[in-house]
């Protein structure tokens, strides 16, 4: 798993590390902690993600001052206050927009967006899809707990249909978003899913995301033990989790189950179906190809989660190479200087029809 993540950044030849200054000083997890008291509810999945991020960042060896966390509003969006980097806790839904301005004007920064399912898929849905299509150089951590926590328990755009909450006493009427289907539909260049309770997997995905130049969207299944406890229980319960979790690894046949007896096979319509390994020829078992520029296969994988948690793929669905937005913009600025020379203010003001009065 971790090999997959590490491999890709090197493979595409211009990983994040080439533009963000590195440090020679040895960093530890402690360097990334602030003196602020962490104020999430006891037992919240956010703690695990925070610890995972703080403990993996030293591996990257980036200068701490060149890392920035930008967030919106919601429980997870308090994240920047606990990271001893630059940070910007903004307004509801707008973190991708604000981070777009930052990342586009500062290619020397590693810019991380921390957001939740309500923040990024309801009020900020527009900014999320546009950041993805532009391939802005952002690492977006989408904490999906399928509920509104900070406003105390209303249903979210990822809540299951019929969800009973304070605002939907008779059940919610809204079909949920599948965040990964949405991101792949927007042709995001890096789309992955992981889970708060599996630190090793979480860090391997973060590592790969950090190396990706362009938008990396990482959906993190995160438990809200107050308003939506056990939302992801099938993926955590040791007695069933291996049977429902499909771990994706690039270039590997998609085989899963406690005894690795199940596999995925492509159907004639392009979707995936679950088959018993024993029943099929090995050549029929699908091989995961995260680097296929065509998003169809990644999309089909993202649909496997219907109905929820019968079979849930985690890992990197898609990881393709496309110029990032800041690179494209910088190229235009460079081209303008090359073809027209440096800007000259007096010449600009005096362009067009002028006349002199003596």
């Amino acid at each position: 798993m971790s090999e997959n993540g590490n491999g890709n950044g090197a493979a595409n030849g211009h990983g994040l590390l080439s533009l963000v200054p590195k440090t020679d000083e040895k960093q530890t997890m402690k360097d990334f902690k602030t003196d602020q008291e962490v104020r999430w509810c006891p037992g919240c999945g956010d703690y695990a993600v925070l610890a995972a991020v703080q403990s993996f960042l030293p591996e990257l060896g980036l200068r701490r001052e060149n890392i920035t966390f930008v967030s919106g509003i919601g429980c997870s969006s308090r994240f920047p206050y606990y990271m001893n980097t630059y940070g910007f806790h903004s307004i509801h839904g707008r973190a991708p927009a604000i981070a777009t301005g930052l990342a586009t004007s500062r290619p020397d920064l590693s810019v991380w967006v921390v957001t939740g399912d309500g923040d990024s898929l309801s009020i900020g849905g527009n900014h999320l899809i546009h950041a993805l299509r532009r391939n802005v150089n952002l690492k977006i951590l989408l904490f999906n707990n399928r509920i509104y926590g900070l406003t105390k328990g209303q249903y979210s755009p990822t809540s299951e249909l019929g969800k009973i909450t304070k605002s939907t006493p008779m059940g919610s009427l809204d079909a949920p978003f599948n965040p990964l289907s949405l991101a792949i539909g927007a042709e995001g260049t890096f789309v992955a899913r992981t889970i708060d309770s599996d630190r090793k997997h979480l860090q391997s995905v973060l590592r790969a995301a950090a190396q990706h130049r362009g938008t990396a969207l990482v959906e993190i299944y995160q438990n809200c033990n107050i308003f939506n406890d056990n939302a992801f229980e099938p993926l955590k319960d040791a007695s069933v989790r291996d049977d429902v979790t499909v771990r994706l690894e690039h270039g590997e046949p998609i085989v899963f189950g406690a005894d690795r007896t199940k596999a995925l096979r492509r159907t004639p319509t392009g979707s995936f179906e679950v088959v018993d390994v024993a029943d099929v020829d090995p050549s029929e078992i699908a091989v995961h190809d995260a680097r296929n520029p065509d998003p169809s296969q990644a999309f089909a994988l993202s649909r496997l989660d219907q109905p929820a948690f019968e079979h849930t793929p985690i890992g990197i669905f898609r990881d393709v190479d496309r110029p990032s937005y800041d690179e494209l913009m910088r190229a235009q600025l460079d081209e303008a200087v090359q073809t027209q020379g440096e800007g000259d203010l007096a010449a600009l003001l005096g362009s067009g029809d002028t006349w002199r009065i003596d």
Partner: protein
Amino acid sequence: MTKQVQQLDRVIIRFAGDSGDGMQLTGDRFTQETAAFGNDLSTLPNFPAEIRAPAGTLPGVSSFQLHFADHDILTPGDAPNVLVAMNPAALKANLTDLPRGADLIVNTDEFSKRNLAKVGYAASPVEDDSLSEYRVHALPLTSMTVTALTGFDISKKDAERAKNMFALGLLSWLYHRPTEGTLAFLEKKFGGKPEIMKANIAAFQAGWSYGETTEAFSVQYEIKPAEHEPGLYRNITGNIALAYGLVAAGVQSGLPIFLGSYPITPASDILHEISKHKKFGVRTFQAEDEIAAVGAALGASFGGSLGVTTTSGPGIALKSETIGLGVATELPLLVIDVQRAGPSTGLPTKTEQADLLQAMHGRNGEAPVPVIAPQSPSDCFDAALEAARIAVKYRTPVILLSDGYLANGSEPWKLPDVAKLPTIEPNFAAPSPDGFQPFERDPDTLARPWAIPGTAGLEHRIGGLEKADVTGNISYDPANHDRMVRLRQAKVDGIANDIEPLAVDDPSEAARVLVLGWGGTYGAISAAVRRVRASGRGIAQAHLRHLNPFPANLPEVLRSYDKVIVPEINLGQLALLLRGRLLIDVIGYNQVRGLPFKAEELQGVIQDVIDSE
């Protein structure tokens, strides 16, 4: 034949036609010729919001008014002396503005039964005596153009489309305009289509020759160049001046400009213009919506760029929350509002000054923002620089209120000496042995440090939650919140000590009545003031550039007059602020017709107040 030449001191021409007739282009070219000739001038384009309303209908009429003179003028003029009407709709839509005795040039080719019926004319007004109070020149402009272009390898439609150049040629002859600029323009515009280019030049020259030879025009007019200060001049619209001002702010501060914008009338031309100047290192970002546009600008400011967003009133409504975030995080941000008539979509292509209270108060919580308004098209350049100076020095969003009239109107501009433009110091925070506190304020300006990512040792977190004074940590402490609200207000209020005091113009030094305006009404008010003074009355005039904070001497100025008249293209928004903040009553004069004030109407208003003293 030799024509009689009559001297005039000023002329107001209005070109009017269908949206597809090229009236804006015709007006713009006549303006450039007039500028090159050396007249003073002022223009007023007026066009529908629809790109192509049904042809020949009243909603589809587009017009361009130009006032030019041998002396310094201030407005595009109240009423045209000459109306060029390319079709019945253009005639009908503009006739009420035409004073008796005015010249009326009508393209009779378009006065078909069908076109007349479209606008409710039972009979052609050119043929009955309904236009008898005007000097009518009924000319078949379209067919004369087509005739002049026989022999060119172009379609009949293309030949007909050149009728605006025929009209321009005729008017250029009539007013002795230099033609080199228009010929060069046509060569460049149609460079890729040589036959169309030659045809348009031929149509232009045919119009000129027609004027020279026809007996329909017995008089040619001459308007001598105006006296201007020595210098290099160009004609400029408010939107282009504003765009140049923003580019200049980048150069003068050394900060990269980041413009986040979403297309909206009448502000889009600023985005278009700045997008052409990437060689200055300017980044332009057409966002997915107004909110993303300002968000990206604020994010860029956090990173050490000068973030700018350009929009109109509806866009400001959408950006309000992010502007509030800029107030809370105390980052530089320029917000340009090219005001248009509201509420809601309103009249997108028409002017208004009704966003003043939105700019002042349109945010949740106590969220003071400096507000600046340019007073003429060329002044948009200086106002943009001044807005940038305040935003950077005080680490604050600044709202600049232009309007549709300034944006599209134009005037001659004496180019500033670039070496004498003000410089803007970013003064980024640097590491210090005393440690770093993100909300420790400069004792003079009360501005907080601007510490940008990439600076080692200054890592810190900002955001929309209330911050503890000095440390910037999250604080829910009641006393701290009260203190921070007052500090942010005091910071903005303190800018009053860093701006020019309000200047009063009163040559008589004995006026008892003051007329006070703000923003784009400067030209009309000034023209009215001249007329009032010419009538023998004394009147003092002052014009506010800074709406928030007000200049420190404003109360003293207002209290030194018996009466203060405040004309505004809204229902009294500045008047409300003056009464509320200064406890000074003023006499409001308010019109919201989507059009600038006329000098004559303001003259009447001012004289009535003076005479009632």
